């Protein structure tokens, strides 16, 4: 199932059709681990695959070139889904030198026994010549790990971008223009939201650096290769990296006996103004991956939970823990929820929003046992407040 990017440059990775739980990321379409073989006077392998799939990678390479002809293995990222097969690969490629930066070498040494591997440690600006084509290296710290880097081939205007611009998208075809663009961008958005959201500043810096490059094709380490919509993808990334919001209200909640759910729907009614998108998400009917994806370009958020054991419900706490780690910036929100005798649910959410430095639009909306008609009116008013604020923020 190889695919040719340019003459002598082929995809040799592995398509993981069946994975759904990718360290907690719900990969609804599966994923791919992309590796690429660049053949010239010298031959380089760009990245590898997840550990159990090393044999597939070796077979794909062998179909194109003898394993002993590989001179370089470039490691753009030390995470096990791309570097996991390295021990197997290095053992089968006796003539290969591993090319990476110092931080990557350090990280690899913590994962594997690297004592038999030959290394060429590079910095940004360094190059490796394959004869007619030259690999240029650009370190991109925190996009996605400290040791992450891009490899660029100017002769082909081709960027190997590692996790950046990737998508969890298993498919039989390899290029983005073989699928509806909207679907591919949506998967790229989900990937960005769940993997790169905390590193928007670093992503913005990298995007700025890329302006100086003449890029026609981007080959990430997951999902489809960009060749027809590179500019659209850059544009989308610039918006996400800047947390540019849409006029969009997100209502996220968990409920025990329906009271908090009733409040959520009243907020929805109030928020449904013309020109405003409102999403209602019941936490236990959704998943962390979808919630983070929706959060990325939402302007305002109502987050609700019933009070359970003097705190919020555990899955609500799980969502907030996850979202806080993703460091969503520039949001405004409010907390809501029901309680019986003790307090705790909405108040705990309010505290969480403050630690995320969101603008708090009002004090928590609370209902004892069941929301009264007055409280539901208050919820509708709060919904309107969220919608108006969302329009403001999106301007």
């Amino acid at each position, binding site marked *: 199932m190889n695919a040719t990017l340019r003459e002598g440059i082929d995809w040799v990775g592995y398509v993981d059709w069946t994975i759904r739980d990718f360290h907690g990321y719900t990969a609804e379409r599966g994923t791919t681990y992309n590796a690429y073989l660049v053949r010239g006077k010298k031959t380089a392998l760009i990245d590898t695959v997840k550990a159990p799939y090393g044999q597939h990678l070796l077979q794909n390479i062998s179909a194109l070139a003898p394993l002993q002809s590989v001179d370089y293995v470039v490691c753009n990222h030390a995470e096990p889904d791309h570097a996991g097969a390295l021990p197997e690969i290095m053992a089968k490629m006796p003539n290969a030198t591993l090319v990476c930066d110092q931080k990557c070498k350090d990280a690899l040494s913590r994962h594997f026994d690297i004592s038999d591997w030959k290394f060429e440690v590079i910095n940004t600006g360094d190059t490796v010549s394959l004869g007619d084509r030259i690999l240029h290296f650009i370190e991109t*710290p925190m996009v996605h790990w400290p040791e992450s880097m891009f490899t660029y081939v100017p002769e082909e205007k081709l960027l190997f971008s590692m996790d950046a611009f990737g998508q969890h998208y298993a498919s039989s075809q390899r290029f983005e223009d073989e699928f509806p663009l909207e679907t591919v961008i949506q998967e790229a958005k989900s990937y960005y939201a769940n993997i790169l959201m905390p590193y928007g500043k*670093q992503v913005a810096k990298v995007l700025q650096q890329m302006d100086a490059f003449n890029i026609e094709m981007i080959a990430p380490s997951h999902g489809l290769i960009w060749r027809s919509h590179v500019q659209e993808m850059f544009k989308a990334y610039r918006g996400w990296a800047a947390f540019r919001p849409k006029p969009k209200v997100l209502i996220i909640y968990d409920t025990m006996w329906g009271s908090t759910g009733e409040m959520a729907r009243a907020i929805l009614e109030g928020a449904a103004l013309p020109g405003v998108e409102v999403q209602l998400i019941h936490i236990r009917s959704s998943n962390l991956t979808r919630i983070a994806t929706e959060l990325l370009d939402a302007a305002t958020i109502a987050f609700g939970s019933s009070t359970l054991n003097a705190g919020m419900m555990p899955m609500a706490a799980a969502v907030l823990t996850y979202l806080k780690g993703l460091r969503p910036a520039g949001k405004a929100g409010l907390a809501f929820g029901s309680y019986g005798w003790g307090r705790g649910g909405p108040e705990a959410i309010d505290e969480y929003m403050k630690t995320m430095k969101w603008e708090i639009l009002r004090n928590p909306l609370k209902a004892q046992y069941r929301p009264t008609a007055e409280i539901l009116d208050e919820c509708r008013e709060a919904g309107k407040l969220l919608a108006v604020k969302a329009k403001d923020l999106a301007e």
Partner: protein
Amino acid sequence: MKKYVCDVCGWVYDPEEGLPEEGIDPGTPFEDLPDDFVCPECGAGKDEFSVVD
């Protein structure tokens, strides 16, 4: 007062500016940051920082 750079991600602590959003006042030298200080960008600890010459 010297600037310190996070060796993990490259973020720079400038004591002139402090980190007001984390409650660290402008003018706080790196040495006086609390032991549990972490890089606001990548979460690396204080011992991952080195002085900027």
